[in-house]
């Protein structure tokens, strides 16, 4: 499952204090440039980890981009998230090669360890579990990616150990 990333209308927004001044440099860099919509959204997500509603409004007011266009783009591409996710996103590859090498077992093992379903975030907001189409590491299937690090030829147990180690580092 892709990350559950679009906020439902009646869902209570995350109670996060968002420092909107952080996106000022982004706005001045891209303001008025053609084709700027996606890079601005990518930049905002890079800063906040997701795109808060307030950021949409501010970007729209200061660049003149239409809110409807921005929302349309943000919900079209799988990369954009409209609600907060875990600090670490665990992308378990479910490409063809990983699929035939039993990637399902990796997802199942992680679901059990993290006690969340695929696509969801753990309660401590440390991890989000996601299934992605292909990481391009097919020759070393099954694979997963956390941050910019790729892990290959996994078993369910190894995948869990990798996540355990990250958790350990975080608690220190």
């Amino acid at each position: 499952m892709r990350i559950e990333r679009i906020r439902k209308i009646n869902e209570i927004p995350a109670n996060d204090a968002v420092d909107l001044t952080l996106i000022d440099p982004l706005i001045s860099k891209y303001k008025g440039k053609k084709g700027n919509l996606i890079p601005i959204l990518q930049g905002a997500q890079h800063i906040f980890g997701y795109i808060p509603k307030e950021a949409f409004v501010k970007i729209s007011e200061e660049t003149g981009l239409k809110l409807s266009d921005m929302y349309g783009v943000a919900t079209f591409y799988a990369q954009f998230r409209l609600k907060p996710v875990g600090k670490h996103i665990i992308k378990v590859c479910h490409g063809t090669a990983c699929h035939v090498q039993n990637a399902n077992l990796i997802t199942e093992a992680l679901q059990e360890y993290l006690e969340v379903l695929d696509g969801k975030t753990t309660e401590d907001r440390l991890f989000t579990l996601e299934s992605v189409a292909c990481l391009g590491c097919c020759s070393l299937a099954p694979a997963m990616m956390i941050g910019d690090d790729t892990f290959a030829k996994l078993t369910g147990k190894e995948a869990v150990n990798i996540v355990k180690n990250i958790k350990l580092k975080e608690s220190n």
Partner: protein
Amino acid sequence: MEKTKVIVGLGSCGIAAGAQKTYLKIESLMNTDKLDFDLKKTSCIGMCFREPLVEIVDKNGSYLYGNVDEKRIEEILDKHIKKNEPIKEYVVATKLFETEDNKFFDAQVKIALRHCGMIDPESIEDFESQNGYEAIKKIAKEKISYDTVIKSILDSGLRGRGGGGFSTGMKWKFARNNKSDEKYIICNADEGDPGAFMDRSLLEGDPHAVLEGMIIGAYAIGATDGVIYCRAEYPLAIKRLNIAIEQAQKKGYLGNNILGIEGFNFDIHIKEGAGAFVCGEETALIASVEGERGMPRKRPPFPAESGLWRKPTNINNVETFANIPWIIYNGASEYAKYGTEKSKGTKVFALAGKINHSGLVEVPMGITIRDIIFKLGGGIPNGKKFKAVQLGGPSGGCIPEFLADTVVDYDSVNATGAIMGSGGMVVMDEDTCMVDIAKFFLNFTQAESCGKCTFCRIGTKRMLEILERITEGKGKHEDIEKLEELAVQIKDNSLCGLGQTAPNPVLTTLKYFRDEYEAHIFAKKCPAKACKSLLTYEIIPDKCTGCTICAVKCPVKAISGERKQIHFINQEVCIKCGDCYSRCKFEAISLQ
């Protein structure tokens, strides 16, 4: 005398296999043991099944060591570097003596991948030392006209390596013939086919070759600006491209009046994709670069006439661009020597799935699929039987074992119902269920359909629902006919390649593996024993010793029985996890 070189393969795959740790270990050993050699980095050489790879080049020649973890590198440095005794059993490829894996390289012809695993991708000097940027220099020095460049590409017979297979030279000619003050050249690096990774490998291993190909293309069509649209899942490729672009700008390969060619001003930018498979389709890609939802547009007008920002635009794939400098430098006829009548040159294939030698290979067109899988790929692991190969990703199809002697060229592959696509080959053995594979691809295309065309948006969803119920044992008698009917309608009524080819995996599996569909629907059995809902685990009374291990470990307590008594699985409780099956030491559990 030249210093000994130690070269570590640091592509994404190498790093995932632990090459970074090996590299750091070498660095620390160099310091502590005061070793004297040049430590260098390179990228993936294609031999992913032996990663991490370390090459040592000494006065005698080159030795490629495989599976080099931290422990093994200590041993290798100790023997090979300190005592000058290469460790033969760890060498996977060399020209100096016979090794088991030498033949992996012997059957290959490397044109697109000529530098991958040979040079440091972050060094422009390394690239230049291997005839890099010599093709564009040749054009500048000999004042070769754009017409001649286009003619060379036409004569070479190069066809689009992204999957379409359209003549690259023709594409360039159309873009050249459209007059405009601005023109664009785009490199499609939105490699989305699950199972294909040659573009990632090329961008990580030889980014300058792609840049040089784009520069030559820009010269030929008269482009003023270049864009590389790269998927965001490839952070290392993006990093190395950025380094390469900066280096090329500093050396004057990008910028104004490039290499003294009056009026040839050209620069390249990277656009990061945002995660949409459909953006590999050229008009959707253009929409995405413009900052819109990546939905395909109607053609004509073709991008060559009205593309990015409504200006003439030429789009080629990464592998296509990587071939260009070689063709210009070595001549079109040299390239056309390889291949078949209508498909010239070489093609890179990504081997993955149930195959011994997974990795990247580049072979002349015209080789048979069987040779790729068994000669280069080393056959199927664990003595299993080869069943089929999926070619062309979600748009392609499954080629069964009995057609394995099909030669790879665009037309022969199309005749089987599959497509060449970008060259991803996922090999399947007897344990792979073909209905499950069809469902897997439909699941993918259904999720990635942009939603513009009704037949693609809803039709793929309906097909997926049918496949889901078949694999769950709830298939109905009329399901096969329904699938075929929907497939035809989706093909006929979709605007872009995604929808037009989405039913292919279902159609090819129905064509070659119809009996498997029928077994699922009528007998409620999965012949490959892959579809969970159709399995039953049972205890074979004669073999059960009553060791209790299965009963203790069963997560849902579905197994009962006293110690030293025959056990029993309650089918109503069993969740078919297979835990008992893999744990039983006496093979007393049967799987039906």
